[in-house]
């Protein structure tokens, strides 16, 4: 069933920009905090969007992160232009990573990102085309705690 969109915001993410990596997710967290979203849900949205944002920073050329709020759920959509993921099932396995030493020096690249997004989401969809890019859709319901 189509639902009314209460709020929609778009953020650009630059690949390789470790200085600003996380800015978009922090803004999303602050927007939802001001609206009064439950602290546990807020934490799940923030963590899932930050992991997704850092994936764009680490692996893609650029990306767009979209926040869509409806009366019942928060949707985070991330579309990037980049190398894509050849084997999504493998990438979803905890510990699998193609990270470079630079990414690991920043505290990331342990192969926990995608599994952690899935863990925090109520619905998680991922599609990828090699040499084109990756699309994620993370849905978190506002009316349950996923625990």
């Amino acid at each position: 069933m189509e639902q009314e969109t209460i709020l929609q915001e778009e953020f650009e993410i630059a690949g390789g920009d470790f200085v600003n990596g996380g800015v978009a997710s922090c803004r999303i967290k602050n927007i939802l905090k001001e609206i009064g979203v439950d602290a546990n849900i807020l934490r799940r949205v923030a963590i899932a969007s930050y992991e997704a944002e850092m994936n764009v920073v680490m692996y893609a050329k650029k990306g767009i992160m979209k926040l869509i709020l409806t009366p019942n759920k928060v949707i985070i959509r991330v579309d990037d232009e980049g190398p894509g993921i050849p084997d999504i099932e493998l990438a979803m396995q905890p510990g699998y990573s193609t990270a470079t030493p630079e990414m690991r020096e920043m505290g990331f690249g342990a192969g926990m990102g995608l599994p952690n997004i899935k863990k925090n989401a109520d619905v998680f969809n991922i599609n990828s085309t090699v040499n084109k890019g990756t699309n994620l859709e993370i849905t978190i319901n506002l009316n349950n705690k996923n625990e």
Partner: protein
Amino acid sequence: MKLNQLKEILQAKVLTNHLPIDIEINNIIASDLMSDVLNTKNPAELLLTGLSNNQAVRTCEIAGIKAIIFVRGKTPDEETIKLAESCKIPLLSCDLSMFETCGLLYSRGLKNPDSKYGTGNNPSGRI
């Protein structure tokens, strides 16, 4: 326990300006890997880490962690300190190793947010 008490125990110095450190701390996560920090089930209140770049601060802002103590004498650059000040996340630094820092705080009753065991001053208190 308050953050300023932890500062005394670890003989840590405060790196941020104008941020209060009389914050209550009960749960601590210790890791150099931000993915681990983002992976706890329950929120931690303090991060102990040797990773002194801006992503340590961002990770705390995202995960709702109130303060950072850098171990092994690590100090972040000015930009990272400014970012922490704007996020209202106090930064401290101590010269001890991660192992010694964790040991000192665990023995005084502080615990991991997802702890399955008792605390250092109540080791038999398995949950």
